[in-house]
C-alpha cells in the first residue's frame, strides 16, 4: 500500500506521537501541509505549546518510525484510510470531529458503497432480533450495513448482512482486540467476508467513552440509522442522536407501550423517526423496492395457530393451545414448525410471538 507524503504525515501524527485529537487538529491547522508538519515538527510542536515528550527523534527517525508502522499494518493485513485518502467516505467528513485516520481490515471497497446503519441495545427481544436480522439481510442487498460488534441488536444486524458480505463493523477498540471478547469468532468472520473499522490504534482497549466516540462514526458513515431496540437510556440512542445532528434519517421499530427495551424506540418515533415494520419501509424512503417475499407454505393447523398468535403478538404456549383447541404438545409441534418456517419466534418462558 502506497501512502503519499501527506498521508504518511497523518499516520505519523496519529500513530507515532502521543498527541490527542485536539492537539493534532491544531498542529495540522498551523502547518501549511501535513508533510511540512512532519518535517518541521520541532517548530510547529513548540509553537503549539506541545512538549518534546509527546514525540521523538529528528526527521529521519520519524520517517523510519512511520515506515515501521506501515510495515506493521502490512503484517497485520490491515490498512489505514486517512482523511486525505480518495476513498475516505464523504459522509464521514461532515461529522463534527471526523476521524483523521480509520484503520481497517477486510474489504476496503465497501467504503465506497452506500451505507446504512442498523443498531440495537444488547438486550433485544427475540422477535426484534429476528425481524432485525431479516431487515438487515434485505438492506444488505442495496447498502453496506454498518453496525457494531455487541450482542443483541448489533449481532442481529451482523447475522443478517454477513452472508452477503456487505457489512461494516466499527469497533470501540483497536482492531487487534475484540470487545466483547466472546465475539472473537464473529469478528473473524466479518474480517473475512466484510470490513472491520476502527479509529483507534492497535492495542487500544475499549474505554467507557470509546463507545460514544464509535457511535458518531456509525452515524457518520451512514445515510440512515435503524434502531432495533433501545431502552429509555441506551447507547443506540446516542447513535440515533448523532444521526439527527448530521442530518441523516432515523428509523425505529415500534414497541408495545411499557416495554422497557423499546421505550427509546417509541420516543424516537414520537420525535419523527420513521416507523419500520419491514425492510420495505426503509427502502421506500430511498426510492427502492424490496424484493418480493416468498409466501410460506402453511397447513391448516399452522395457519390457525399463526392467526391466533397474530391477534396479540405474543402469547403463552398454554394459551395458544387452549385457543386453537389443541393439546399442549400438539401446539408445541405446530409452533416449532412455524418457527422453522420463519414466521414465529420463541421469546422465552414458553412464550411465542410473530416475526
Amino acid at each position: 500500500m502506497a501512502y503519499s507524503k501527506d498521508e504518511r504525515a497523518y499516520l505519523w501524527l496519529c500513530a507515532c506521537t502521543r498527541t490527542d485529537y485536539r492537539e493534532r487538529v491544531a498542529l495540522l491547522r498551523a502547518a501549511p501541509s501535513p508533510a511540512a508538519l512532519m518535517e518541521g515538527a520541532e517548530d510547529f510542536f513548540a509553537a503549539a505549546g506541545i512538549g518534546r515528550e509527546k514525540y521523538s527523534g529528528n526527521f529521519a527517525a520519524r520517517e523510519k518510525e512511520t515506515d515501521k508502522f506501515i510495515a506493521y499494518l502490512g503484517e497485520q493485513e490491515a490498512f489505514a484510510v486517512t482523511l486525505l485518502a480518495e476513498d475516505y467516505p464523504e459522509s464521514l467528513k461532515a461529522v463534527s470531529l471526523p476521524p483523521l485516520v480509520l484503520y481497517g481490515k477486510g474489504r476496503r471497497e465497501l467504503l465506497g458503497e452506500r451505507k446504512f446503519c442498523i443498531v440495537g441495545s444488547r438486550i433485544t427481544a427475540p422477535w426484534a432480533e429476528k425481524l432485525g436480522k431479516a431487515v438487515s439481510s434485505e438492506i444488505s442487498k442495496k447498502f453496506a450495513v454498518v453496525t457494531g460488534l455487541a450482542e443483541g441488536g448489533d449481532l442481529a444486524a451482523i447475522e443478517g448482512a454477513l452472508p452477503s458480505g456487505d457489512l461494516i463493523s466499527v469497533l470501540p477498540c483497536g482492531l487487534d482486540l475484540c470487545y466483547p471478547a466472546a465475539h472473537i469468532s464473529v469478528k473473524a468472520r466479518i474480517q473475512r467476508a466484510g470490513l472491520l473499522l476502527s479509529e483507534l490504534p492497535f492495542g487500544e482497549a475499549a474505554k467507557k467513552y470509546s463507545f460514544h466516540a464509535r457511535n458518531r462514526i456509525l452515524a457518520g458513515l451512514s445515510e440512515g440509522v435503524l434502531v432495533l431496540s433501545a431502552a429509555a437510556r441506551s447507547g443506540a440512542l446516542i447513535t440515533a442522536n448523532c444521526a439527527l445532528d448530521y442530518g441523516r434519517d432515523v428509523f425505529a421499530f415500534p414497541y408495545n407501550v411499557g416495554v422497557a427495551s423499546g421505550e427509546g424506540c417509541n420516543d424516537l418515533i414520537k420525535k419523527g423517526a420513521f416507523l419500520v415494520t419491514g425492510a420495505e419501509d426503509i427502502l421506500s424512503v430511498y426510492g427502492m423496492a424490496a424484493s418480493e417475499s416468498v409466501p410460506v407454505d402453511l397447513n391448516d393447523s399452522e395457519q390457525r395457530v399463526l392467526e391466533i398468535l397474530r391477534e396479540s403478538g405474543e402469547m403463552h404456549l398454554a394459551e395458544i393451545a387452549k385457543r386453537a383447541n389443541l393439546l399442549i404438545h400438539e401446539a408445541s409441534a405446530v409452533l416449532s414448525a412455524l418457527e422453522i418456517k420463519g414466521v414465529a419466534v420463541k421469546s422465552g418462558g414458553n412464550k411465542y410471538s410473530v416475526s
Partner: protein
Amino acid sequence: MIAKIICYALNGLEGVPVEVETDVNKGVPSYDMVGLPDTAVKESKERVRSALKNSGLLFPMNRITINFAPADIKKEGASFDLAVAISLLKASEQLFGANVKDTVFLGELALNGDLRPIAGLLPILISAKGHGFTRFIIPAGNAQEARFLGGAEIYPAATLSEVVDHLIGTSVIEPLETAMFVPHAGTRSSADLRFVKGQPMARRALEIAVAGGHNVLMSGPPGTGKTMLARCLPTIMPDLTFEEALEITKIHSVAGVLGEEGIVTERPFRTPHHTATTVSMCGGGNKIVHPGEISLAHGGVLFLDELPEYKRSTLEALRQPLEDGKITVSRAGGTFTFPANFMLCASMNPCPCGNYGSSKRTCSCTPAEIRRYRKKISGPLLDRIDLQVEVDDIEYDDLTSDEEQESSEVVKQRVDAARAIQRNRFEGSGILTNAEMGEKEIAEYCKLTREGDEILRSAFDRMHLSARARARIVKVARTIADLDYSEEIQPKHVFEAVSYRIFEKIG
C-alpha cells in the same frame, strides 16, 4: 489340627472366596495372621478373643497361625471375624461333630459375642451362589437383605453362641424363608404429579423422557417447582423387575446405604449437592472402591439441581457414563466397573438472577453474565440432554386452583405402554429404551418420511446442530411416536422433538 473355613471378600461388586485356615500348635502362646490382612482384619484378634470369652468359649492359649488364602488379594474390613472365630474353635476342637464344610460364614463380632451386620452382603451371596455355595451363616441384621436370594439355606444368627449351638446341633436356627419381590413394597414417596400445578410443557417433557429413557433439563425462574417435578420422576417410571432390583440392591449394599427393607423396591432418586466432588459422583476411594452417586442412581434418576453450580470437571466426568451406562474406576488397588445406567434430570435458572424470560420480574443480568452462566455447561454435555424445557412462572391463581391435574398413575400407564412397544421392538438385542439405540438401530427403526427428513434438514441448518444432536432428536421423535402408538415417525413428532432443544436457537 488344621481348620478351613470359607468366607468372602468384596472386590467391587463381586464377591471373592477367601479360605481362613487356622493351625493350633503346641508351643509358646502366640497369634500370627498371614495372607495380606489389613489392619481391621488383624484387629479381629481382640474382637474374637473377647467374643469367645464372653460366649463361654475358650480362646486357645497355644501357638496359633491363621492364614487367608488366596494370599495375593488384599483382605479388608471386619466381615471375616466370624470365620476367624469359627476356624479357631474348629482348630481347637471345640466344635466337635460340627460340619462346617461348604458353609460360608459372614459377619463382624462385637466384644460381647453379638454378630454385627456387614456391608455388601447381597453381592457376596449372589457371587457365592454362583460359585456353588448354598449354605450361609450371616448376621441377623442382614437377614432382610438376604431373604430375596432363593435356592440357598441361609441361617441368620444374632450371636456367636447361637452359631456354635447351631453347628453342634444343640439348638438349630431356622433357615430364612425366601421372600417374594414386590415393587413399591416400601413406603411410596409422597410426590405425585397430581400435586404439581400447571407446567403442562414440563410434564409432557418428563413423560417423554421417562418413556424413552432420555435425559432432561428444566430451565426456569427460582421457586417454580423444578425440584418438585423432578421428584415425581420415580413415580412415573416403570416398576422395577426383580433382576433390576437385585442389581440396584447390590450397589446400594456395597455402598452401605441399603434401607431397612433389605432390597430396593423403588427406583433410586439421587440428588447429590452441587459441592459434590468428582470422586463422590463417579466412585472411588483409597482402598475399598465405593460406587459413586451415578452408580447409586443406576436404574433410577440422578437429579442435579442448579446444574451450572456444579464443578465443571465433575459434570464433564458424567459424559462417558451417560453414553456407556457404566463407569470404570481405576485405582492402584485395581480396576472396578460399576453399572451407571441412570436417567439424568437437571435443573437450572435461565440466568444468574433467575428472572430472564420471566413475565413478572425483570432480569438484572448483563448479556455477558448470562452467557458466562450458560457456558458453565459444556456443549458436549448439553448435546447429551435430549429434552430441554422451560418451566413457567406460576401465577397465584394456578397455585390455588382446584383444577384436577393428571396423576402419576395415569401418566405411568402411558409410559408403560410406550415401554412395552420398545420392549417388543428391541427384543433380544439387550436394548431396553429408545435412548439406548445406536446408529444401526436408528437406521432400522427410525426411518423418517421425506417430509420429516426435510424438516430435520432445515432445523439442522438453522439451529447449527451437531451430528449427535440430530441422532438424539430422531430418538426423541421415535419415543413421541411410540407414545402416540404410531408405527412411523410423522412430521409432527419431529417438530415436537425439535421444540425440546431450546438452547440451540433457531437462527
